[in-house]
């Protein structure tokens, strides 16, 4: 039986600033064979250790179709992420995982896919988006709606351009407040619904972002004819063990870390505590 709490050592390859408080780290397991063996699916997460400070859960921001490194996008918001932001290429961290259920890619095959993200909610979807784009022929239309508070808060700015320029992706972005250099949409994410061509019949929707955004987006989606089963989101809770033991992340009798973090809106509605 593998030891449940034992992390593997990984090395930071490089880091990239996304926003003033958010960075993306590229990681590789120190043991090359372990790196090759390691498998995950988008929507799962890993427990990242800063040795001496403990572990925190981060979603895979990269796709398993791109095996050269594992990427996590981290907002600086507490002790551990402060320490992580002080780390750079060559520094070592611990990785444990993958944890959680992940997105069901097989079930998504053949569907149109609508990704809706707010702010730091794009990283969990980015791994899925690249996985879909790398196996593009398996899926129908791909539409991405992404919003952030300001232009500076948009993550993966280069990639937004790449997606925009691909002929097989429809991308719309918006910001709550523009600035001098911003010529795009201004307003909350739901304003993008009227700019995109939505076809509820054969679409799966992946929603990720701050709770208030998710609430409004889901209301809109339901009003536009999407069913609760078609709306898929990832839940966040304070997590510690990541393997359904410590119970910090429970909602009712479900563990967000093990039964989730990916749930359909139908499942979320049925949660009782």
């Amino acid at each position, binding site marked *: 039986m593998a030891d449940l709490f*034992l992390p593997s050592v990984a090395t930071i390859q490089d880091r990239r600033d996304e926003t003033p408080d958010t960075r993306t780290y590229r990681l590789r397991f120190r043991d090359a064979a372990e790196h090759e063996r390691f498998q995950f699916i988008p929507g799962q997460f890993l427990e990242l250790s800063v040795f001496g400070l403990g572990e925190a859960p981060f979603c895979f921001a990269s796709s398993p179709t791109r095996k050269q490194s594992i990427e996590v996008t981290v907002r600086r918001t507490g002790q551990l992420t402060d320490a992580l932001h002080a780390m750079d290429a060559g520094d070592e961290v611990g990785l444990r995982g993958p944890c959680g259920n992940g997105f069901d890619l097989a079930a998504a095959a053949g569907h149109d896919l609508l990704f809706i993200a707010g702010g730091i909610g794009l990283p969990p979807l980015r791994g899925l988006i690249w996985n879909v784009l790398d196996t593009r022929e398996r899926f129908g239309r791909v539409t991405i709606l992404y919003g952030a508070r300001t232009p500076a808060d948009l993550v993966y700015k280069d990639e937004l351009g790449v997606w925009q320029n691909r002929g097989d992706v429809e991308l719309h972005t918006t910001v709550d407040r523009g600035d001098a250099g911003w010529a795009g949409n201004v307003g909350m994410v739901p304003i993008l619904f009227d700019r995109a061509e939505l076809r509820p019949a054969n679409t799966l929707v992946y929603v990720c972002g701050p709770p208030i955004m998710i609430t409004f987006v889901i209301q809109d989606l339901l009003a536009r004819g999407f069913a609760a089963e078609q709306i898929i989101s990832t839940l966040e*809770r304070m997590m510690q063990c990541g393997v*359904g033991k*410590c*119970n910090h992340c429970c*909602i009712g*009798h479900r563990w967000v870390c093990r039964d989730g973090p990916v749930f359909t809106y139908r499942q979320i509605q049925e949660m*009782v505590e």
Partner: protein
Amino acid sequence: MTVPQALVIRKADLGTWVDSLIGRTEVIGPTRGPRGDVLLATLSGARELLWDFTNALQPPKQFLLPQTEPLVQIRTARGHAQAESVADAHPQVLFNVRSCDVKGFAVLRRMHAQPPGDTAYLRRDEQTTLVCLTCPTPCPLGFCVCADAGPFLEEHFDLQLTAMDDAMFVEVGSAKGRALLEGQDRLFRPAAASEVARRAEIEAEARRRFGPVTCHFGSAMRRVSTGRVAQALWDAIADWCLECGGCNFICPTCYCFSVRDRREDGSWERCRVWDSCQYAAFTLEASGHNPRKRQGGRVRRRFFHKVSAQYYQKDGDVGCVGCGRCITVCLGTADMPAVVEALRKGEWHG
């Protein structure tokens, strides 16, 4: 020799048996503390072991789930980190554990064995032998009969002892229990049919003394599971909770934990430490968001985990063994029987 499932040892020979066990393994059992309290401790001789007591102040869970348990050691050498599992499990016998506490271990085992198995816990569990001592008389605050946790057990023990006149009736529940009898042929003999009958009589008599069910879990379960308990009732109960976490720490079935890195001479130990769902920080996220900001939400969480049908279906039991320790430890009045009664009646008077 094949050890039969039921044996008898003379009470006068118990000391010899226990001393021989102490000679070959760690034996932990109830003993009298300096001020008269019943404590669980490693025994250095059979004379320290209590046979006539109600129950220990604390449950024995700390011997399988230590308050602070190193799980991983992290060292740095020449700029590189090395992480290794810490495995310090060693054989131990927990002696004269009351039925409620043995049932508590059954709950903990089932939970830790659920895939993915909790290796640290299961390693300790494998090395632990549980000797249950049945209860002839009810303890003042216990309600084990309501939780199917006593005063006698039919499973979950390695050995079960029942005092019977000048002898002790011994039931073997597992190979680990049988191992405690190896090489002791002189002390034990197979139980006679009359003794088996006497043992049944003693249990029936004990069950009469323990009386009927007083803590109505089923009734509380119906309300909790469907979310039919008004938040105002939870808030009223929470008014009588001082958020000390005592009920969690004293509960034989509570196991929620946090993970912390502790500095140890140039290395770190990643430790599992007991935590309490009654603390506001239990669900506090780094962003500052807290889904259980109010104490009423946290009290509701505790009792949802303990008595909801959702958990009952998942775990096969309520998360209570009726030991009554939360009644003793609660600084307010938010103990299990009081809350179950409040849920059942839909009202709370503190």
